[in-house]
């Protein structure tokens, strides 16, 4: 079934117009052949070519976008079972639930909190992805009123959860333009739900207890014009979800069942939140609905998601170079460190807290931490020497002394010899750095 890059290339317009987001048609063809993108990204393909390419090159888990504007997010486009085989591409969207039976002011507050929540970690902003409105009243008007309340929160992505298509219809009239995800089409109501998804162009979750019914529903809803589908395997427990999600992912990546090649949906509310949230992050969920969570849970969950969705081959890095901290002058000390983001931001935190002016001199260790870089030969006197030459360190400061991390102590003599700079060995733990620098500058 799969096609080679050159065969794919032959079917493209070969104008290199870049509209697909790739520099050339060939680059796009290579990505298509690898199964990493959808053919729809090229606006110049006719339906027949798209279908042909789609069948052969479509990523085994199709892409689905929820919402519109800056906060919209895409899930799916995954190609492996295990992140070490390649990487996981699109982190699951975490959407926080509010019931339409809550007072409107409270719904609005939840939406605002979700919109504004952010944790800064190692140079990235970790955020929540949207608000999930649950129809608990059974009353379409009330559901629509709740959808209206969220309206003031701009283009925060929405998820609408209701069993009754009439409730969806009422809410979509109010917020359909935000392309919410709607939950769920079942064997009972799929015709109405698919029609709504088609009319509003919004993604649709299909829900069923068995694999056969799920595939059936997905096929019927897409045939009826639903533009994008997610699968809800209707787990009764977190363990069910892990087992079913793993099963679905396996069917998708082996392309055994095209009608199961969609991102997965997980509602953690009935399942016990922290464990289900962790399970969803680890095992293949695309959209996860959660109740409002206490801060410690959010922090840990978002950190786990950041960890799992970091490319295992590429540590998060900062650019090598000279970073002035606390307005240093020409006499300020120079602190050597590595370009692993975690190291840089940990260090920076302590330096800013200590308020000692200095230069952070970050060398390229391919994103490895200090000890790892020393052990792996990525931090040595040659690396330091080249970095001093490549930057204007000598012109930036009026002295020739460099402070190295305590864990790099074994390199101190060799760095002095290779660079001619005087080397001071700093503490191992960044927490002690303020004290160290103060006594250094005094002495």
């Amino acid at each position: 079934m799969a096609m080679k890059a050159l065969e794919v290339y032959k079917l493209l317009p070969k104008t290199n117009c870049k509209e697909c987001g790739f520099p050339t048609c060939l680059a796009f063809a290579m990505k298509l052949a690898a199964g990493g993108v959808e053919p729809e990204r090229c606006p110049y393909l006719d339906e027949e070519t798209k279908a042909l390419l789609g069948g052969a090159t479509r990523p085994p888990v199709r892409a689905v976008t929820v919402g519109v504007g800056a906060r919209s997010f895409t899930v799916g486009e995954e190609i492996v079972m295990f992140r070490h085989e390649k990487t996981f591409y699109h982190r699951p969207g975490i959407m926080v639930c509010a019931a339409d039976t809550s007072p409107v002011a409270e719904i609005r507050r939840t939406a605002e909190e979700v919109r504004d929540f952010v944790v800064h970690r190692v140079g990235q902003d970790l955020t929540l992805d949207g608000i999930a409105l649950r129809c608990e009243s059974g009353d379409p008007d009330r559901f629509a009123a709740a959808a209206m309340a969220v309206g003031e929160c701009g283009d925060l992505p929405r998820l609408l959860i209701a069993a009754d298509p009439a409730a969806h219809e009422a809410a979509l009239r109010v917020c359909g333009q935000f392309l919410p995800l709607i939950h769920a089409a079942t064997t009972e109501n799929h015709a109405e739900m698919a029609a709504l998804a088609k009319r509003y162009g919004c993604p649709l979750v299909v829900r069923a207890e068995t694999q056969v019914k799920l595939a059936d529903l997905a096929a019927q809803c897409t045939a009826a014009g639903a533009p994008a589908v997610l699968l809800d395997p209707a787990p009764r427990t977190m363990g069910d979800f892990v087992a079913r999600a793993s099963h679905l992912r396996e069917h998708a990546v082996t392309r055994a069942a095209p009608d199961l090649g969609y991102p997965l949906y997980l509602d953690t509310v009935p399942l016990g939140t922290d464990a289900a949230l962790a399970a969803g992050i680890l095992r293949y969920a695309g959209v996860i609905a959660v109740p409002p969570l206490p801060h410690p849970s959010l922090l840990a969950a978002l950190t786990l998601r950041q960890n799992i969705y970091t490319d295992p081959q590429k540590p998060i890095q900062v650019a090598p170079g000279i970073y002035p901290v606390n307005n240093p002058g020409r006499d300020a000390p120079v602190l050597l460190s590595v370009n692993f983001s975690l190291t840089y931001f940990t260090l920076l935190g302590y330096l800013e807290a200590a308020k000692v002016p200095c230069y952070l001199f970050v060398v390229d260790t391919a994103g490895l931490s200090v000890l790892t870089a020393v052990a792996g030969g990525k931090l040595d006197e040659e690396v330091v020497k080249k970095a001093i030459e490549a930057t204007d360190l000598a012109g930036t400061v009026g002295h020739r002394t460099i402070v190295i991390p305590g864990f790099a102590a074994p390199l101190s003599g060799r760095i002095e010899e290779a660079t001619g700079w005087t080397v001071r060995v700093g503490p191992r733990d960044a927490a002690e750095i303020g004290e160290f620098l103060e006594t250094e500058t005094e002495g």
Partner: protein
Amino acid sequence: MTERITEVAVGATRTEGGTRTRSYRIGGASALPGMGDAGSRPLVALEICDDPALWPAVVLEEVGDLAGDLAGWARAAEEWWNADLVRLVLTSTRRRGFDDPAAAGRAVEEVLAATGLPLVVEGSADPALDTEVFRRCGEAGEGERLLLGTAEAERYRSVAAAALAYGHAVVAQTPIDINLAKQLNILLRETGVSHDRIVIDPYTGALGYGFEYSYSVMERVRTAALAGDADLAMPMISAAQDSLTVKEVREAPDEERAGTAVEWEFYAAFAAAVAGAGIVCVRHPRTVGVLKEAVADLWEGAGWP
């Protein structure tokens, strides 16, 4: 993927030659959790130590006076917090100038007397002390099928010798690298430690601090074993030791610190269980219950035929 993970016995009851009130066999999986027969349910170990000066403050706040009462702490691990295992970390041996290996042996005896749970012992980390410390610990636990650690590439002979002499199993730790893990297992086998007495510790970095590597190395060790690599087909143990000293826990507001500690341990330990770990270790007593519940739920999941 038809291979199976070797079963390793941990703890020995009276009929098995020890005094434990229960014993376990970990391993036995022929698939990762949620993907087939994942073997025996992962065990949750609560870590305690013999010198609380080197223990995370957030745990000391929780356990109060128990921190100075090794037997009481061990008993509480079983009776209040319901751990499956106790892991005794001999922090006393980490102090500068430590010179009393016999005390390490006595600590092991004290814990064995206080609880009926099987025991994991984390001994010294200094080659100069290892021989005596591991000998004393091994001797103190003779017949009890301890899980004795830690063997590393540079220092595995003393642990191996003590395990062989007194009938224990060994924790074999390597820094997040599947090839190093394999090599160490081969070295251990060459000294006479059989495969059913080795538990792999692929090193677990704390959540947000290396866990992204540890998670995948566990999956890799497990998938390699299931694809037929016998030198990796041992159960794994995971202990994200630095979890409770990370910035997020230390700098949490007072009223959120305990909660953050529990979540930080929980998310990493549960993820380790999903990646195939057979024993997961935590230090905050309140993590034990939530983790056991989650693991039980994971194990009972019903997939599709």
